Structures are given as structure tokens and as C-alpha cells.
């Protein structure tokens, strides 16, 4: 499968934040989106996911059966600034819901929690977790159901060093399995051989 973007422009609040962005990613590729604050990194990810309309250009999948992944959004895991975990529900409850709702189960909830170092904490309500733990739980959501494309917006915000290393290993495994990673970040991620896309920003 290939993820194509041609001549993408995005706008926020009526004014263009980036334009003329294009890339083509195959299985195992990674794209690192960098740039100053306000350069449109998050906007780019949301445009790729289809959550925001592109002002210009298009995003599409190639070489994929449209039955399996009818749209780019359907093939994406989106990890935004927010963790998509309800504070009143338990950690395992949250993940189990997303697994059932998203379908295409990959790892069991317990195994996914163990993979991010939260084994044995599944019964805790998400409101009782620390910022870093919540971020890890959100990463565990990427593991409970299968999506070939991961859109990650500042994925390591709040993670400690050990969790970052573990997350790098998770990303490497996803790419080995033929997955595609798009990450917007300031912090260096352990994405070996990633293409860097630097958005210039307004200044």
C-alpha cells in the first residue's frame, strides 16, 4: 500500500498555514513532520486523516483493495493531543471499547497494556492516572486494533525516557509489519530512515 499526498494546502480559521505539501509513503516508511509552532503540523495530520478538508490537493491510498480500507481515514489510527480516554471509565474498559468499536483486533487489551508498561493497572479509572500514564494508555490503543497508517501528533508528550524507548520499539515493529507512520513532533523520535518534512511556518 502507498499513501500519496499531492500539492496539499491546509488552512486554519480561513488563513493558509501550509501549501504545496506532497509525499508518497510505502509500507514501512515513516514521515517526520517538523516545523515551528503554528507551522501547521497538526493541521497537516488532520487533513491527511480527513478530519479537516484540504484547501487544495488530495490524499489517497494506492495499491490497496478498497474493500479493506475504503478511505484514508478508515486506514488510520489518529493519536492527537487528546488521549480519547474517558476519565470515568477504567483503563481496560476504555481500551476494550476502542477495540470493539474500531474492529480488526490485533493485541488483547492486557497484552497491549503490558507492551506500554501498564500491566496490572487496567482496573484503574483513567482519571486517576498521571499524564504520562494516560499517554501510554493512548499508545496502547494503537495496538489493540490494526490500522496500517499511524498519524501521531506529539506522541511522546509527557512520556519518560523508558517509555520513549519502548515507544520507539513499538514504532519499529509497526513499520516492520508494513505499517506507515506520520509523526508531527519537536522531540527526536527513534524513527530510523524517516523522511523529514519541514514545514516553514509563517515566519
Amino acid at each position, binding site marked *: 500500500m502507498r499513501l500519496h499526498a499531492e500539492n496539499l494546502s491546509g488552512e*486554519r480559521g480561513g488563513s493558509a498555514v501550509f501549501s504545496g505539501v506532497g509525499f508518497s509513503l510505502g509500507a514501512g516508511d515513516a514521515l517526520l513532520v517538523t516545523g515551528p509552532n503554528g507551522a501547521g503540523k497538526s493541521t497537516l495530520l488532520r487533513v491527511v*486523516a*480527513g*478530519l*479537516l478538508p484540504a484547501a487544495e490537493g488530495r490524499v489517497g491510498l494506492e495499491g490497496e483493495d478498497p474493500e479493506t*480500507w*475504503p*478511505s484514508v*481515514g*478508515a486506514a*488510520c489510527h*489518529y493519536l*492527537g*493531543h*487528546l*488521549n*480519547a*480516554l*474517558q*476519565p*470515568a*471509565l477504567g483503563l481496560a*474498559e476504555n481500551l*476494550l*471499547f*476502542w477495540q*470493539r*468499536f*474500531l*474492529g480488526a483486533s490485533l493485541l488483547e487489551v492486557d497484552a497491549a497494556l503490558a507492551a506500554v508498561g501498564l500491566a496490572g493497572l487496567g482496573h484503574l479509572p483513567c482519571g486517576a492516572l498521571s499524564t504520562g500514564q494516560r499517554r501510554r494508555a493512548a499508545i496502547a490503543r494503537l495496538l489493540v486494533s490494526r490500522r496500517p497508517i499511524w498519524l501521531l501528533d506529539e506522541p511522546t508528550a509527557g512520556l519518560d525516557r523508558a517509555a520513549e524507548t519502548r515507544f520507539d520499539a513499538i514504532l519499529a515493529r509497526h513499520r516492520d509489519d508494513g505499517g506507515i507512520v506520520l509523526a508531527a513532533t519537536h522531540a527526536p523520535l527513534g524513527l530510523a530512515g524517516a523522511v523529514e518534512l519541514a514545514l516553514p511556518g509563517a515566519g
Partner: protein
Amino acid sequence: MGALFRRDLVLGLRAGGGALTGLLFFLAVIATIPFGVGPDLGLLARIGPAILWIGALLAGLLGLDRLFQADRDDGSLDLLILAEARHLLPLTVFVKCLAHWTASVLPLVIASPLLGLFMNMSPPSIVATALTLLVGTPAIAFIGAAGAAVAVALPRGGVLVSVLVLPLAIPVLIFGVSASYAATADPDPFLPPFLILAALTLFLGVVGPVAAALALRFAAD
């Protein structure tokens, strides 16, 4: 979809979910009416169905602003929209409405016979009112979803949701109350207004989620 229903139901019933708030509001409204109106039993019995309906309508509107707000606050809403290829967005909204109705409005319907006694209503009148509430209140949740979706991007959309939804809920109120009255007032037929009420629920069950899905898609900035 079953998973979404279960999750929203659990969220609604747990502390802070708002299911109890609506019920307590309903109880408070109905319990104070006899003190305000006075001890005229005939008058109470006459206005009983209308008061029950108005109380249920306002209590049902209370928790509506949280319908999508909780999902937006934690980012789940983006994922619900992204999953559209797997779960049609209007269907997702429909299931959320059903879960909201089951958690917050069904308790009102179940409590309404007891509160009917407070209003000195006769048994047939109580049964008819509970039945019309059971059939009519889902319509309020469905049309409320459209209002909640429009107001989801606003920081304090609660009042706006009520103001947006109330005019649209008026037909439901009119036919609900007239069917309840028809059960006791002899020459009036019960079935026609009751069937119109059921038709309203079915109609809004389609229109509400579709409109809400449209609004949500444009609110996803």
C-alpha cells in the same frame, strides 16, 4: 455498536454522568407543583398529564449538552468520526441517543406513575401518560442530538442547546399531552394523537441523527 451503547450507558449511569440530575430535577418540579397550585384535587388531576410531560421534557433537555461534549473533551469524537467507513456516523449518533435516552430519560418514564399519584391522577390517566412518555421522549433525544451537535464547539452550549431544541420539541409535547388527555376525556380519541406521536419519534429518529452527523463533521476542526 453494542460496545458504544454499553460504554455510553455506563458513562451516563456512573457518578457525574448526569442521569441522576435529570431524575432529581423531574422529582423536584413535580413535587413542588401541588404546593404551588394548592390543594384543589380536581385541578391537579386535570393538569397532571401536562405537568408530567413538561417536567419530563425539561429534565430530558438537561443532560443533552453532554451528549457529544464529553467525547469532544477527551478527543474521542475525532475517532468516532474517523471510524465512519466502518460505522456510519448517523448510526453512531443514533446509538449514542439511544444510550442517552436509556440512561437519563427512561428513569423519568419509570418514575412518572409514582409522580402521577402526587398529581392525583386516575389510574387510566397515569398509564396513558407513562405510555405516551415512553413513546414520545426518544424524539426529544433524537432532535436534541442535532442541537447538541451544533453547540458542541461552543464552550457553554448548554442553554443554547435547550433554546435550539425546545421549539422543535413542541409538536412532541402537544401530541403527547393530547394523547394523554384523550385516555380520560371520553369523546376524544386516544389513537390518532398517539400514532402521530409515534410517527414524530420515527421521523425525528431519522432526521435528528443525520442532521447531527452533518453538524459534527463540520465542527471537527
